[in-house]
């Protein structure tokens, strides 16, 4: 079976507030960018990941196809998940062997989720994804649930200072990344929801990202140094938080084991809250020698539904630039790291 590689990646310069552009307008320039860098104008398969609830309109993802150019009709699919899962579907599709290239994109415009009082309603919006019988009626927002997991992690023998260190490092790395937000060094902060402080939480972000996958010889033609996908796997935990150990991530550990999460030099983790990075490091067995989120990660830019795909693109960039030989990318969705995807990429093509 042919190996599949990331041959192009583009992302927007993510914004912390509404720039006035529509989703399609955010997306179109980055799709144009990868078409130009690969010289491709048509793809064997197209798959996207987005969330209609961010736009407040059903089937809003369909209009995003305007940015792709879908006539004559293209072979296309969509997941209502982070676009990292769209990449997984495209990877499976390319393994069939009858098409050689795939376009994968994701976008999220979080700034337009605004409560009646003018504050961001993104934490409440995420309540709608919860079990409607036992969880959603109580109204727990996304930050509260993350704080619940952070407490479980701290009670398993860790310190709040460990969380601070992740926030400080992530924001510093983000300031050095032209695509991430320019967020200040965390100072003295009150709790947002204890034990989490505002800098432990992801910033409201608008943005889009796109990746081109190609198979075998086609990948070598399109890219000087493709990032070959050596393993990719995704697993899920129980939705009910009370039925699992929140201090650990069994699904991330299993996905990592099956994707071959070892001997990596760089890891891009879809850790939207400080403690999630620490739980994922444990689950994926990442030692202190692994560079984690040199891009700044989701704490420096979190365009929801593209954030996970960006992890794959950022990690692939380390291969394509020659900085690293073996890298790991991780994506997550659902409350408290419910589902986890791990993708391991290498410079060497053994296939």
């Amino acid at each position, binding site marked *: 079976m042919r190996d599949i590689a990331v041959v192009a990646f583009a992302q927007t310069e993510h914004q912390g507030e509404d720039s006035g552009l529509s989703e399609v307008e955010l997306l179109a320039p980055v799709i144009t960018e990868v078409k130009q860098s690969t010289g491709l104008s048509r793809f064997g398969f197209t798959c996207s990941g987005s969330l209609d609830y961010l736009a407040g309109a059903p089937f809003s993802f369909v209009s995003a196809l305007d940015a792709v150019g879908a006539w004559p009709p293209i072979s296309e699919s969509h997941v209502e998940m982070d676009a990292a899962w769209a990449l997984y579907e495209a990877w499976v599709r390319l393994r069939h062997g009858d098409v050689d290239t795939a376009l994968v994109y994701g976008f999220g415009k979080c700034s337009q989720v605004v409560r009646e009082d003018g504050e961001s309603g993104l934490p409440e919006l995420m*309540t709608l994804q919860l079990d409607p019988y*036992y969880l959603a009626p109580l109204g727990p927002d996304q930050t509260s649930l993350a704080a619940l997991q952070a407490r479980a992690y701290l009670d398993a023998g860790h310190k709040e200072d460990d969380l601070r260190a992740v926030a400080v490092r992530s924001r510093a790395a983000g300031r050095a990344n032209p695509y991430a937000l320019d967020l200040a060094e965390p100072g003295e902060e009150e709790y947002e929801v204890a034990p989490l402080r505002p800098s432990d939480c992801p910033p409201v972000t608008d943005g889009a990202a796109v990746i081109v996958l190609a198979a075998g010889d086609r990948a070598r033609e399109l890219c000087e140094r493709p990032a070959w996908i050596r393993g990719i796997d995704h697993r899920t935990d129980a939705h009910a938080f009370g039925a699992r150990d929140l201090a650990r991530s069994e699904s991330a550990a299993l996905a990592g084991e099956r994707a071959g999460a070892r001997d990596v030099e760089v890891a891009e983790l879809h850790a939207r809250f400080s403690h999630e990075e620490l739980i994922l490091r444990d689950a994926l067995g990442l030692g202190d020698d692994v560079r984690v989120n040199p891009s700044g990660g989701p704490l420096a830019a979190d365009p929801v539904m593209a954030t996970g795909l960006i992890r794959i693109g950022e990690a692939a960039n380390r291969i394509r630039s020659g900085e690293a030989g073996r890298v790991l990318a991780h994506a997550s969705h659902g409350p408290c790291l419910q589902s986890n995807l791990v993708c391991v990429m290498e410079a060497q093509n053994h296939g």
Partner: protein
Amino acid sequence: MPQFDSLTADHALEFPGGYTRSVGPVIGRFLTELRDGRLVGVRTAGGRVLFPPVEYDTDGTPVTGEFVDVGPECTVGAYAWVPRPRPGHPLDRPFAWALITPDGADTAMLHVLDLGVFEAGAKPPKTLRAGLRVRPKWRAERTGTVGDIESFRPDVTMINAPVRADYRLSAGRALSRFLGGVAQGRLLGHRCGVCGKVYVPMKGMCPVDGVPTTEEVEVPDTGTVTTFAVNNIPDPRAPDVPFVSAYVLLDGSDIAMVALVAGLPADEVRMGMRVRAAWRPREEWGQTMANIKWFEPTGEPDVPFDDIKDHL
């Protein structure tokens, strides 16, 4: 900010009247019992009790049809403290989300933990910890939703019992004379005709010799701390916590009196320290020791221990 003059409009996504869902026999049984004020879990094929009940165990095995009474005693697992509730939250004052496992169950439920009334922005209370024992607070009107439990509350571990008795006390002859002096800014005592010791305040008798005393002596409002205690429990008469209560041996007297010491950090008070009374403004004086707020350091050199060792 928008890069150009962008049109915006408000927009809401809503199912007017709410979205109707069927709950099925397992969740339906739980909600029905909840409406009656009971907590039930469901037994799995492996013998565990899932709470709240779901149709399948985490390994995918269907549960049995056996429902088990659990609680009402429950234990808190992970928790999150909300110092500033958001509009969709169930309480408009600080509270905690918590994973709550009833006795007899093997899994937990997310619910609201009400630890009492706190100011907005309050730090997590010390009582909030894993292992806290709690029980449900039921709503009077229940409809068969998870909100039929208003919140969970900690078990009763303490009560507050009011204690008060009222009196009208007479100071007696000696103390009335002493407080009469204090009302004029004077500190009076008696010298014992037998042992020669000076008592301030006077009692009208020498407790050592058992004889009446009548020789009045006035002493200055300066003295020496012989020993002291640092108090961490607030007292309406004292400055901030921690405050210091001390034995102050007034110059010319032989028995120390108990007084507050202030005007310096509590950890800098020392035995042998020289102090002077800090009087309230004269217009506030009455026949009371409250005329002296406390004693403050004079800045004189400390008195050697040997000179005060007989006055501890």
